[in-house]
């Protein structure tokens, strides 16, 4: 087993394949061999695309031989299973789509493949991307490569586990309230949610359309910028920088890190000190309405989900459970096809949109959303970027958050940015020892910028990451098991 090949970053692999020192077929073969060796333990993938991967790799080698230079030549890619890839099973980790084969390909996936990426597999997630631990998948268990007794985060937990375990170099995830940033923090990755609307949602199976955003998870920030998900607008290749001189970084007065427990709180303080050492000026900013983010989100997202998921009715695709009439067929199909968290959110959303309650719940939440977005606008008048934790804690053990609301709290720090449509990312910022844990667990620093500030954001993350090197401090033991 050639470990050197699976350790390479996306940029290193692409450079080697474009330069002809290694073929995409060799990289793909090494990656698939590694997947077969470790995925039984990690459970990152619901479907491994062995044949398609080898076919794409051969195609990339032909294109490179013909003189093309591809930004993602031969880079192993994990695709969250809520994105369509023609001819492959696309399940959303749900019983209702368990056997559905997509008849078209999502734009983001098509562009990554066209840029030379090799789709290794479809990655597990929380059912319909609803959750923060991957435990809501109806089709499989995904474990955190840094501690197999813990969750990989969610909802893009299969993508984060795949990249952390070296079963891919880039994972495509989707983020509605934190579903890229939190699993990235739990798995020692950079996870990037671009500005709302920056990346096409075509072929991303909808959860909450005013919030859903596709983005990458990688082992370093430079690679995030090279994913070229969307070429229609200014490229997101980061303005790479060595330091943070001239940047004002805001710390949010209302985000009390003491609530995180002393150890993590100390780690975040150290991260903020490191930002200063790199030349940033730390300023105090206020987001008075950010504390209302969770309440706002848990009305808006379920409302949109109840509407989007109405399409799963047993008629045109997916599961059908018969009943005595058409109405019973709908009721039975959706009862058998959806898991508890999806039902919970459809019910709360249906209630919030129902006659007599719409103004009290949905409209009020959309007004709160306006206030939250305004708070960010005011804050960005005084700073270039905002820094805060990416999650409320490090990866937790299975079944530790059985009360739905305690799971929702995981996204406390990520939801306000989602509601405001802002670009934000999580970058590794340290390791915390947990009682009874086998090894230290990673934690993530969240950086957030104004709308369309991707270049600045990625450049700052790259400078912080290069200077601190937290991500390189530990490797998951499971990655070496082949």
């Amino acid at each position: 087993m050639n470990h050197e090949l699976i350790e390479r970053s996306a940029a290193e692999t692409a450079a080697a394949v474009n330069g002809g020192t290694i073929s995409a077929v060799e990289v793909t073969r090494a990656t698939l061999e590694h997947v077969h060796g470790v995925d039984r333990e990690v459970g990152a993938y619901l479907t491994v695309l062995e044949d398609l991967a080898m076919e794409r790799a051969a195609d990339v080698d032909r294109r490179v031989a013909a003189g093309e230079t591809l930004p993602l030549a031969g880079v192993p890619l994990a695709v969250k299973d809520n994105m369509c890839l023609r001819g492959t099973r696309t399940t959303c980790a749900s019983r209702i789509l368990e056997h559905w084969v997509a008849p078209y390909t999502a734009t983001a996936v098509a562009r990554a493949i066209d840029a030379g990426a090799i789709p290794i597999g479809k990655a597990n997630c929380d059912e319909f991307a609803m959750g923060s631990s991957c435990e809501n998948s109806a089709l499989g268990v995904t474990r955190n490569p840094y501690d197999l007794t813990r969750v990989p985060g969610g909802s893009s937990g299969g993508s984060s586990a795949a990249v952390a375990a070296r079963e891919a170099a880039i994972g495509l995830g989707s983020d509605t309230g934190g579903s890229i940033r939190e699993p990235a923090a739990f798995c020692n990755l950079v996870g990037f949610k671009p500005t709302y609307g920056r990346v096409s949602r075509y072929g991303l199976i909808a959860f909450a359309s005013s919030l859903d955003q596709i983005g990458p998870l990688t082992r370093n920030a430079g690679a995030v910028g090279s994913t070229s998900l969307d070429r229609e607008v200014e490229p997101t290749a980061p303005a790479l920088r060595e330091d943070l001189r001239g940047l004002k970084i805001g710390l949010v007065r209302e985000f009390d890190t003491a609530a995180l427990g002393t150890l993590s709180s100390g780690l975040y303080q150290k991260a903020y000190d490191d930002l200063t050492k790199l030349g940033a000026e730390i300023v105090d900013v206020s987001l008075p309405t950010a504390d209302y983010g969770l309440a706002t989100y848990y009305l808006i997202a379920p409302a949109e989900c109840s509407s989007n998921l109405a399409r799963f009715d047993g008629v045109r695709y997916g599961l059908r459970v018969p009943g005595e009439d058409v109405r019973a067929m709908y009721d039975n199909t959706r009862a058998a096809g959806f898991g508890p968290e999806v039902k919970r959110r459809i019910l709360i959303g249906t209630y919030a949109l129902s006659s007599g309650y719409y103004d009290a719940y949905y409209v009020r939440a959309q007004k709160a959303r306006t206030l939250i977005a305004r708070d960010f606008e005011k804050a960005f008048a005084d700073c270039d970027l905002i820094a805060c934790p990416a999650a409320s804690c490090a990866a937790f053990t299975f079944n530790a958050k059985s009360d739905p609301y305690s799971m929702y709290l995981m996204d406390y720090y990520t939801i306000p940015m989602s509601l405001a449509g802002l670009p934000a990312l999580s970058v590794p910022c340290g390791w915390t020892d947990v009682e009874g844990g086998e090894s230290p667990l990673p934690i993530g620093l969240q950086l957030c910028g104004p709308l369309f500030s991707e270049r600045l954001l990625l450049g700052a993350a790259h400078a912080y990451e290069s200077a601190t090197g937290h991500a390189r401090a530990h490797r998951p033991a499971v990655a070496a098991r082949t």
Partner: protein
Amino acid sequence: MSSDTIDIRHVAALARIALTDEEITRFSQELGDLLEHVRALEKLDTQSVAATAQVVESRNVLRADEVRPSLDREEVLSAAPQRQGAFFRVPRIIAE
């Protein structure tokens, strides 16, 4: 906001989901708890605030009106739970 308890049977009927008695008990409790949390929004003064319609200001963009292939009919129909020739087959909705 109303403090009414949710009539979960009515909501489930609107959402077209058959619930077991156990689910009715559990979801009534859980959704009631969640509504308690979202009541926090009552504290915000939203009287003169416009509801968010979009977070990133944008205009409609029209694509060129070109003939392009649509989804392959056979591929789409092959995913149907039940089909009859070129049609999706559904349960009878009009009595004989």
